């Protein structure tokens, strides 16, 4: 090969490589995020979604990059959610933010996302580890369920240590409690139940379980269960431990109907109605994930994935995949 030919080929290579680099450096003017919610009527999810919408607007203003959010409600149906993911991909979404209906069945979503090379940020309902390990562009944002539960238990332990009569209302030396649990298929439900009670035991609160039931995170179901328990165990229940605020509010509804005042009810999530109940003293306490940080983390992570940028430092990922939102105890002060 002559020197001229060699020089020509090298020149072409340089041109082609530089073209490729220019293409990579080109900044996107807009990003499109497909968001699918397991149920649009879940108060906590709604709160988070509102924060994400706010943060998207802030991001747009600060970075000059247009953010299009496609928000869909899967209405508790995994097939609907799979179809929504299909639609997001066909609409060229740059990233998907999925709150899975069935956390055990995220593989279809992951398959489709991997085929289309669209990264996925799961939130609130954690897919199983085997699924999360399938691709390095899958992320999860949530709260540490054990920490939540320990905080919830600690609220009661602290109160018991300060004023035992406020918890053991009938003074018999035993705190009789009922527990309202979320869906059995949700990872947080099992952990919250186990560690809340464990923390009470570890903290030296003498407890006795009167009843427990699954109210699927729903206020109306919790209210019906609580009503049954009030009739079945009159003047016995002293404490209501609930896996979330909506169910705690359901229990409060039932207590109000029965004319029972001053019973200790604790929830989790710090939803807007939960915080209102806390303020007016109906709810003793709740554990709140910092929703500003939760929503920001979803938005920032999604934007970084869409723009193929480094993930922001303020949201450190555990094992490069999981981000745990900080939480705080909120308690009603007399």
């Amino acid at each position, binding site marked *: 090969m002559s020197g001229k030919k060699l020089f020509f080929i090298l020149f072409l290579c340089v041109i082609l490589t530089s073209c490729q680099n220019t293409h990579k450096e080109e900044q996107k*003017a807009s990003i499109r995020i497909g968001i699918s919610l397991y149920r649009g009527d879940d108060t906590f999810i709604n709160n988070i979604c509102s924060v994400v919408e706010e943060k998207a*607007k802030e991001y747009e203003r600060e970075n000059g990059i*247009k953010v299009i959010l496609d928000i869909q409600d899967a209405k508790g149906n995994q097939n609907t959610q799979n179809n929504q993911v299909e639609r997001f991909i066909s609409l060229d979404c740059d990233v998907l933010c999925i709150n899975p209906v069935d956390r055990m069945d995220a593989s279809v979503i992951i398959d489709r996302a991997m085929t289309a090379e669209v990264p996925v940020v799961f939130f609130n309902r954690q897919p199983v580890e085997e699924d999360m390990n399938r691709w390095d562009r899958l992320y999860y944002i949530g709260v540490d369920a054990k920490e939540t539960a320990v905080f919830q238990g600690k609220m009661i332990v602290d109160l018991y240590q300060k004023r035992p009569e406020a918890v053991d209302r009938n003074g018999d030396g035993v705190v009789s409690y009922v527990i309202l649990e979320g869906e059995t298929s949700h990872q947080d439900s099992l952990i919250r139940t186990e560690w809340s009670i464990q923390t009470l035991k570890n903290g030296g609160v003498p407890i006795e379980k009167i009843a427990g039931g699954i109210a699927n995170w729903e206020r109306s179901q919790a209210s019906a269960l609580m009503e049954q328990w009030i009739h079945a165990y009159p003047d016995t229940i002293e404490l209501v431990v609930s896996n979330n605020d909506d169910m705690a509010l359901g229990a409060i509804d039932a207590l109000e109907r029965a004319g029972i005042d001053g019973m200790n009810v604790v929830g989790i999530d710090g939803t807007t109605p939960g915080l209102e109940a806390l303020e007016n003293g109906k709810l003793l306490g709740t554990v709140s994930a910092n929703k500003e940080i939760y929503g920001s983390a979803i938005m920032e992570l999604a934007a970084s994935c869409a723009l193929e940028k480094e993930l922001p430092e303020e949201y450190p990922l555990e094992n490069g995949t999981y981000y745990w939102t900080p939480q705080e105890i909120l308690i009603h002060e007399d």
Partner: protein
Amino acid sequence: MIGRRGKWLLFLYVLFLVVLFLMCSTDLIIREPEREIYQIAVIIEDVRGDNYGNFRKGMEQAAAELNADVHFITLYEQSDVRQQLELMEREKQDGADALIVVPVDERQMAEKQMGIPVIFLHSGRTESTGSGSIVIDYKKMGEELAQEMSKGLEKSSPVLILTDPQKQNSADRYFLDGAETVLMSGGYSVQKIPKDEEGGFGALVQLPETEQEERPVLLAQNTEILTAMAGILSESPEAAKRVRGLYGRGSTLSVLNYLDRGQITGICVTDEFSIGYFSVSAAVRALEGDVVQNPVIMDSYYIEKEDVREPDYEKMLFPIE
């Protein structure tokens, strides 16, 4: 060795495979009809889309049926005309084929020439503007609500209108104008109560105890105020006893729940699902060159607790997508 016939067969076989490949993988032979997806941007006058739940459902239903890709945009600042105009321009530049706009200022928006179809959702203007318009006559809605409120209401009961002068859009103004006209002409004492410094209506919780026929009736300017006031009345049964009723407009889930629980006495609503659906279908028709009937005027309905479960209202208030 392959004979002459064998070579021909092999050639035909390869040719067959090539034709099959071309048929299946490309549109060289069988051309699939191209389905154009219309990009439609919906720009509302508010910073939050909370009150647009049923509207969005209707919009999404139409988008799925009519091959449109619709995205919903809220303002950064409440009722900012300049920003709404900028967003309209931005969406056009970003490739939107049509716009659906809930204008902050109806007059300024109507004068704006966009060069693409624009469907306006007006709250009072009935002349045709843009490529089509859907009119929700809030003045008429206010009049209807005031007429229903005044049924059986003694003249001694004052009407307190709960307002937020800092956040008043054209729908709020038309609505209050209609209601006030009817109430004043009916000889009622009407008093406007603006939001206090803490953003609420704390003074109403401490209303003095009065006789039944002298208790005030509350009328909320918009859905946010109606929801907030209903929340106050549900938290304070004492305050609830001192008012004769709470009225307003809107059909969000919170409003319907309060109506169902009796904290809200009556509301005026429109068929928001249909408005969402009509607006997208009008935009698509305008894009396809059809003449859009101008303007489409939406009816409003007065409902109380007992009406919520009536099949016609139930379908309208809780639409299934």
